[in-house]
């Protein structure tokens, strides 16, 4: 475990160094635009898995958290001209509060009903934002990026690096949860909530904790998107596609291990970026649907599950 731990932190440092180096070397803007989206999906998928994977509460409200993150940033920027770091921190705080509310919902509903309630929550919040004139209403709002700070020479590059930081943060948290008593408790309540409660697992506290962390990370991931697009409107910020994409990424990667959603997000995110550029965004959604159906039907444990199965077979072959 110890050695694994140092490997992980070395890997994370190398990843961040590479990201920073990229911003210094590559002059072309496009790679940053594309990679930003993939990184954003990694954060969302990892955050989703904390609740959806470990605890087994399937949250379709990813777009609600993402959208609230976007609009927290929009509001702070418009009202106070707040800097990016403040926008992200505030979004995380709002996300944590929203997560807490979501956690309270789990008291009354489980399974499919919880999922449906999260969809409902998304639409209700979206409609409220649509009717909030100050942040642009249904028509959306334009934003002017502020001047970029050193060492970056372009705002998108900075956003790219910030999102890379968020990826490391999210993965580190998710990994910590998986390896600690929190993860084991969540796993127990996923298998049988009543039995877990009876054996002394503090299910409510764990669920609330998972919801708060997951929500805070999702909102934080959404906050830079306003500056990235320089524009925000409710129907795209709260688009159901985010929820379904993130769900698909987590399921494709596999939800039993923290690496699952990362793998899934990279696979599906890259495919989507390539498809959007080469063919069209409609085909992109089609591929999303087909991949989701295929993996749910044929490989319910995702890529991670497939790898494990192959390994197990090989080991059995040896013995």
């Amino acid at each position, binding site marked *: 475990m110890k050695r694994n731990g140092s490997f992980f932190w070395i890997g994370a440092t190398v990843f961040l160094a590479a990201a920073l180096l990229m911003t210094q070397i590559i002059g072309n803007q496009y790679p940053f635009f594309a990679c930003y989206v993939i990184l954003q999906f990694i954060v969302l998928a990892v955050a989703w898995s904390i609740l959806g994977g470990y605890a087994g509460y399937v949250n379709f409200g990813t777009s609600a958290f993402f959208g609230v993150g976007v609009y927290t940033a929009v509001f702070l920027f418009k009202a106070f001209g707040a800097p990016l770091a403040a926008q992200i921190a505030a979004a995380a705080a709002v996300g944590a509060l929203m997560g807490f509310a979501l956690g309270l919902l789990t008291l*009354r509903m489980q399974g499919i009903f919880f999922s449906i*309630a999260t969809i409902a929550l998304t639409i209700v919040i979206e409609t409220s934002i649509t009717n909030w004139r100050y942040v642009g209403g249904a028509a959306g709002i334009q934003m002017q990026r502020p001047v970029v700070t050193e060492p970056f020479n372009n705002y998108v590059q900075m956003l790219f690096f910030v999102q890379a930081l968020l990826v490391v943060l999210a993965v580190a948290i998710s990994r910590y949860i998986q390896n600690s008593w929190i993860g084991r408790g969540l796993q127990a309540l996923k298998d049988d909530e009543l039995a877990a409660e009876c054996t002394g697992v503090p299910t409510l506290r764990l669920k609330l904790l998972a919801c708060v962390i997951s929500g805070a990370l999702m909102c934080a991931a959404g906050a830079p998107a306003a500056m990235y697009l320089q524009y925000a409107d409710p129907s795209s910020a709260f688009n159901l596609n985010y929820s*379904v994409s993130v769900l698909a990424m987590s399921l494709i990667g596999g939800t039993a291990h923290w690496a699952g959603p990362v793998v899934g997000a990279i696979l599906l995110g890259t495919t989507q970026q390539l498809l959007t550029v080469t063919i069209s965004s409609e085909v992109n959604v089609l591929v999303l649907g087909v991949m989701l159906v295929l993996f749910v039907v044929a490989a319910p444990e995702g890529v991670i599950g497939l790898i494990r199965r192959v390994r197990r077979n090989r080991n059995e072959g040896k013995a």
Partner: protein
Amino acid sequence: MDLLRDAVLIGVLLGCFYAAVSLGLSISFGLLDVPHVAHPAFLVLASYTVFFLNENYGIDPLLAGLLVTPLFFLLGLAVYRLYYETFEKRGSDAGVRGIAFFFGVAFIIEVLIILHFGVDQRSVTATYVGKAWRIGDMRIPFRLVVAFVVAAALTILLTLYLSRTFMGRAIRAVAQDQEALRLMGANPIRIKQWAFGIATGVLGIAGALLIIVAPVEPTLDRTYIGRTFCVVVMAGLGSMTGTLVAAIILGVAETIVLTLFGASWAPAISFGMLLGVLAVRPQGLFGRLS
């Protein structure tokens, strides 16, 4: 006051229409516990099929809906078979994976419609679309009246089917206790498949009503996820008369909010009510207790 009276009347008519589009879900989700989030997507698909028949062959939309019904019945049989083989048979967390599966299906249907028909709104032509009835100073769109009549007939037929016929009773029995039915020598899976076929077949007519009441667009199913699930959950899973009552409540609530606050708040009504019902009274107004 007149405004409110009109809103209530239109709301009742609209509510009956909502009942028609929710009846199928009331069977598939309410009685069979299939998390059928693709139900509205199938509904929109039915509308586009009706549009296709109306546009190219000039067939009356309601007749086209009837023609589509057997096709959707077969589609429903196939979908349930697939769902059963891949999820229910394997057991564990069928619901959660099922909902992901049906979301995938809904997205595929959406995109196929976009690729074939484009993103524009489509509507049908018929003698009763666009006319209105005048009663005193009130103006009732004729298309809503058509939807009301057909929806009421559909609800009554389905209620009778589920309570009077042998197969209908078998469907309700399978919802109550699948194992008991197996012990009686019946095959619960065949019955469920049949029921899912009916739930999907009804969408043929419902799809026709959808495109008669208002123009449709490929992503319309996302709004109807809220409406149909709101109606079915509020009704109490699986109750047909409950579905009608719940749908009327939703219809009236929507039109009243629409008149008082404007159209931009409309999407929040169904989803907000759904959230409220789930939080306060999960078994619905006419719920069976599990």
